[in-house]
């Protein structure tokens, strides 16, 4: 089931893979997610981004995008929307050290988003347990929306 409404990250914590158990190259379980206008706008408001391209359909139709789109950084939401509660990205204490993302086409309200994701690498540096994760988001037409990777420090 989608974890879209679960806010208690201690739930299912025992089911999540630890650094020792994470296998680089092994696909992560993912779940399709229907991106709603409300979810786009909730994310936008959380970073104070009230650009009419995300809020005003009449305006957005006059732009090259021809309708409301999601901002490029919507993958911040999609990462959690497209993974189940037992995914290790939710382990309490997971520290985000940095990320890089490339953008192809925008996500739009009503898109059904799917994710292909895996741990790409893991290593120990300065006594810290790192995992690099690798992700590609697609829309319902199997078009790439964006791709990216992130560096996380895992809880010991």
């Amino acid at each position, binding site marked *: 089931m989608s974890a879209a409404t679960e806010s208690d990250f201690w739930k299912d914590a025992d089911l999540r893979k630890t650094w020792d158990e994470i296998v680089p190259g092994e696909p992560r379980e993912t779940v399709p997610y229907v991106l709603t206008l409300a979810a786009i706008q909730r994310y936008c408001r*959380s*970073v104070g981004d009230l650009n009419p391209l995300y809020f005003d359909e009449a305006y957005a139709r006059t732009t090259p995008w021809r309708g409301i789109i999601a901002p*490029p950084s919507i993958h*911040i939401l999609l990462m959690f929307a497209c993974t189940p509660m037992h995914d290790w990205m939710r382990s309490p204490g*997971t520290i985000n050290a940095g*990320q890089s993302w490339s953008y192809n086409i925008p996500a739009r309200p009503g898109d059904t988003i799917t994710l292909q994701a895996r741990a790409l690498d893991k290593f120990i540096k300065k006594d810290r347990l790192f995992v690099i994760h690798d992700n590609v988001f697609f829309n319902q037409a199997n078009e790439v929306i964006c791709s990216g990777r992130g560096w996380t420090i895992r809880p010991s």
Partner: protein
Amino acid sequence: MTAAYDAPRPGEAIEGPRFAVTRETIRDFCDGSLDYNPLHLDDDFMRGRFGKTEFGGVIMHGMTNFGLITRMLTDWLYPRGGVHRRLETRWLAPVRPGDCIQPHAVVAAEKTTARSRWVSLDIEVRNQRGEQVARGEALVEFPPPAE
């Protein structure tokens, strides 16, 4: 929004939005991102040690920096007909409730390829003390007008 190519020049500076961080903005970002890690919500949890690191209290999501940088770039790009193509960032210091952060960018280089025009930017986010809390680079595209 126009499709005119207003060529940015290396050295051109862009100022992003100032963003005052509170427990409420952090909670809003939890709801916006569905990232409810106790790092951002639970002071008791955050009084513990994380390896060598002690935070002493809740911290802002690192990805809030990412969202603010994106907002700065798209606010700059959309009126110029530009497209945001890539952003790479590293978090350098935690951001806490009570801090005020602001992203900045500087045009670093331009390059024209067979099909399009590209601009690289150096990115940083600083807090109210002038400390750099995030650093990175972005790549944006100014597609030529359709023939």
